[in-house]
Each structure stands twice: as C-alpha cells, then as structure tokens.
C-alpha cells in the first residue's frame, strides 16, 4: 500500500503543476484585464478614466509583467498561502473568501450526507423489491425530484418555509448575524436556514443516486454467485450486504473525485436564488469581472480537491475491490 501511495503522490505533483499552468492560462485568455474592464465600465456610464492612475495600478498589481513572471509569482504565492489580491473587492483573496468557504463546505457536505442517507435505503429497497408498489411509488417520486428544476423548488421552499415556520427569506443565517463572530445563536440560525438549500440541492442528486444504486444492485443480485449463496442457505441480509451491496458501491466511491470539488463550488443558481453566501456565486462573478487572482484561486482549489478526491477514491477502491481486471496484467 505504501508503494501505491508513493506512486499516486508522484502522479499528483506534475498533475497539479500542469493544472496550475492551465488555470493561469485560462484566466488570462480573455482579452484585456480587470483594469481594462473597469475602464470600459467607466466609459459606459460616461465617466473618463484617469489613464495615469490606471497605469500606476497596472504596475502596482504587476499586470505589466510578462506572463511567465506573473505565473511563477502567483504559483509561489499560492504555495506560501498568499492567494493574491482581489481587484473587485480590493482585499487579499483570503480575506474575501473568509467565512464563505466554511459556509459552502457546511452546505455541500450536509447535502452529500442528506443525499446518501435518503438515497441509500430507498435504492436498496427499490432493488430488492423490484416492480412492487413501493418500488413504483419511490421511482415516481425519484423521477419527480430529478425533473424539478432546483431554482423552482428553491422558490417554493423559501415561500413555505417563511409562511409555515417564519424563517427569513434567503441567506444562510438571520441578517443580524452577518459579519459577526461565530456564536451558539449564529450556529442555530445557520442550522435553521440550512435545511432549505440542503433539500433543494440534494433532491436531484438523491433521485439520480437512487436510480444508479437500484440499477447497480439489480445487476449484482442477478449474478450466479448470489443465486448460489441463496441456495446454500445464506441469510438474506448477509447475502445482500456482504457482496452485492459492496460491489454496487464501486461507482459511488469512484465518484468521490467529483464530489469534493462540488463541496467548494456549491450550486451557483440555487445560491443566487436563495441568496446564499457561498463560493459558487463569488466564483461566477469573479470570472465575469476578470478578477483573475480570485477566480484563479477558486479554480486551483477545485482542481486540488478533484485530484485529492481521485486519490481518496483510488485508495477506497483498492481496499474495496483489490482484484485485477481480467484484461490487465501485473507488472514486474
């Protein structure tokens, strides 16, 4: 396992260097920079831009430097925890991101847990009771969840949460806690608001997961080793859990690589509708305004989480399914 860890770590290093370069190229690709965008915006509202000041700012932010110099500076700064300067917010990126990263993490992590807790028993029930009334009913609800746009569900949920429970519309906490240090009351307020985005974002994911788990488990349950186990008198629960359920989890474990970046990126449209202080909306705005260091930091975080997620899922898969693929071969 140690050798495997080293192999995987060694692959991560060039991968992350390549990703950092590509991220920097991508955020540099649009013509102009943040300052030229600002000049255009000033012109549109009829104000003249002070070109001398603009030039000074360009020099101050290092935008007059060659591409490679800026890339190396950014990459080294990233290693030192200096994520750069946000032109839009006129603050260091780390200060801009602040609480948002944690709030996004809380929303997304809770959503993932919600999705798994709801989808797992339903998926297993649907597969083990195929074509029963329960299966048809749950499948119908699942398709309903899959087909309902998140933003629509968000609007409906916000309305009823306000009418029935008196929860303030939008946001992830009551307004009086915004910008305040963390306290028990603030945490309670977050929890009070949290269930709405969790249910909204989690619904479609839950429905999709139920369908996948049901299909995977049905495939496994029809295999001959399950029939043999049943014929040998293995208890049904043990027979289900020991192999078929374990095998049908493989695709979900392989998905961890995709899940981790979602924890940070959040659901952009739902964030806008529910006015959530998460990072998805901020990333979107940073990309629009060419706030390159803010956008670049987000993209780099997402890439790092993807690489880390793939590493974790590979480890989990190696532990869960240590079998060679028949077409493959062990190397010497």
């Amino acid at each position: 396992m140690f050798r495997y860890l080293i192999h995987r770590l060694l692959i991560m290093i060039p991968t992350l260097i390549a990703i950092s370069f590509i991220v920097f190229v991508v955020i540099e690709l649009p013509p102009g920079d943040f300052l030229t965008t600002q000049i255009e915006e000033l012109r549109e509202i009829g104000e003249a831009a002070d070109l001398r000041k603009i030039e000074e700012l360009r020099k101050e932010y290092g935008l007059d430097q060659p591409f490679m110099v800026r890339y190396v500076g950014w990459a080294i700064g990233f290693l030192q925890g200096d994520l750069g300067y946000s032109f839009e917010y006129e603050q260091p990126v780390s200060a801009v991101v602040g609480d948002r990263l944690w709030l996004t993490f809380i929303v997304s992590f809770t959503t993932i847990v919600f999705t798994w807790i709801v989808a797992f028993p339903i998926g297993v029930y649907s597969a083990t009771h195929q074509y029963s009334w329960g299966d048809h009913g749950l499948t119908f609800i699942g398709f309903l969840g899959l087909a309902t746009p998140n933003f629509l569900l968000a609007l409906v949920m916000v309305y009823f949460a306000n009418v029935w429970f008196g929860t303030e519309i939008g946001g992830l906490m009551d307004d009086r806690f915004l910008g305040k240090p963390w306290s028990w009351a603030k945490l309670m307020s977050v929890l009070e608001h949290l269930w709405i985005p969790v249910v909204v974002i989690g619904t479609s994911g839950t429905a999709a997961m139920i369908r996948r788990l049901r299909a995977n488990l049905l495939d496994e349950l029809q295999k001959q080793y399950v029939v043999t186990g049943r014929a040998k008198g293995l208890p049904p629960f043990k027979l289900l859990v020991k192999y078929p359920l374990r095998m049908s989890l493989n695709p979900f474990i392989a998905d961890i690589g995709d899940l981790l970046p979602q924890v940070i990126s959040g659901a952009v449209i739902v964030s806008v509708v529910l006015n959530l202080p998460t990072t998805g909306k901020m990333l979107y705005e940073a990309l629009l305004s060419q706030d390159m260091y803010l956008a670049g930091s987000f993209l780099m975080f997402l890439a790092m989480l993807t690489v880390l997620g793939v590493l974790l899922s590979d480890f989990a898969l190696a532990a869960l399914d240590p079998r060679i693929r028949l077409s493959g071969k062990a190397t010497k």
Partner: protein
Amino acid sequence: MSEHRYPWPVLRGDYIRAAVGAAVSTGGTLLSAGNPYVFGVFATIAGLFLLFGVRTAWRQRLRYTLDVTGLTRIPPVGGPVTVRWDELRRMSMRFYSTRRDRSQGWMQLNLSGGRNRISLDSTLDDFDAVARTAARSAAANRIELRSSTLANLEAIGINTRRLGTDPPAGDPPR
C-alpha cells in the same frame, strides 16, 4: 531451495521516484516556509518520499528463501522471519493498479502463520513460484481464500481449481 530478490530495474525505478518526489516536495517545503499549513503538508509528503527511499534501500538488501518448509525473509538487519507452510493460516493477494482502468499494476502477497507475517510484491524475482507454493499450501491447510485473491491468482496463471481451493461460484464477486 530458491532465493528471491527485488531486481535492480524495479529498485532503480523506485529510487528515481523517491529522489524526484523528495526533491520536488522539499522544494515545496522550503517555498512554503511562511505558511504553517502548507509547510506541514509538503513536509509530510517529503518525509514520505524519504521514507520510501530508505525502504527501497532496505529492499535492495532484502532476500527471500523459498523451500518445502516455508518462506523466509532475510532482512539486512535483524533476524530472519519464516512463515512455515504447515503453519500458514492466512493468505491474501491484492492488486494495486496504477491505472484507473486497472490495466496495469502489481500484486501484493500477504502471508501469515504462527506469529510471523510476510508481505511481498509481484516485482520480486520469480514471484509466481512463491505465489504458487503459497496457494498450494493454503489449499492443503484448507484456508478459505477471498474471491479477490482467487481471481488474482487466476490472473497470474495459477489454476486454483487444480490446487484444490474452492473456486468462486459462477460469476465471481469482485
């Protein structure tokens, strides 16, 4: 009796991995000295690569002897460790893939018996002979092998049915 070692081309590859990994992660450690979190991550990774280098050096001097009584690991420091075939109680063979499609990788054979435990990789010289003898002993000792172990043994050309171990029924669970 036969003697088995890790061949030089494999060790050379591992030395290069350790050196490249340690160099890059040490560079990262030095650059990130100002940030304790990033520094900690890079220092840990650098430590892992250094440890891997030490482990490779250890493996270079490691020998295994295979005979009718058992498998013995003879380390450069310390006494030999033997798993006797008649004491073999547990055997597993795991596959570690370097590709997502599992098309390439290596096997790791774990044997335990008595109070001893031996782990070795398929990169060892004539690994198949060790695996075949271990599988035969497992069958003789009526050890129940996991389906993944059976599948991996089959993959390296060891016919588990002929050895007397229970073959996986029908479509094998992975």
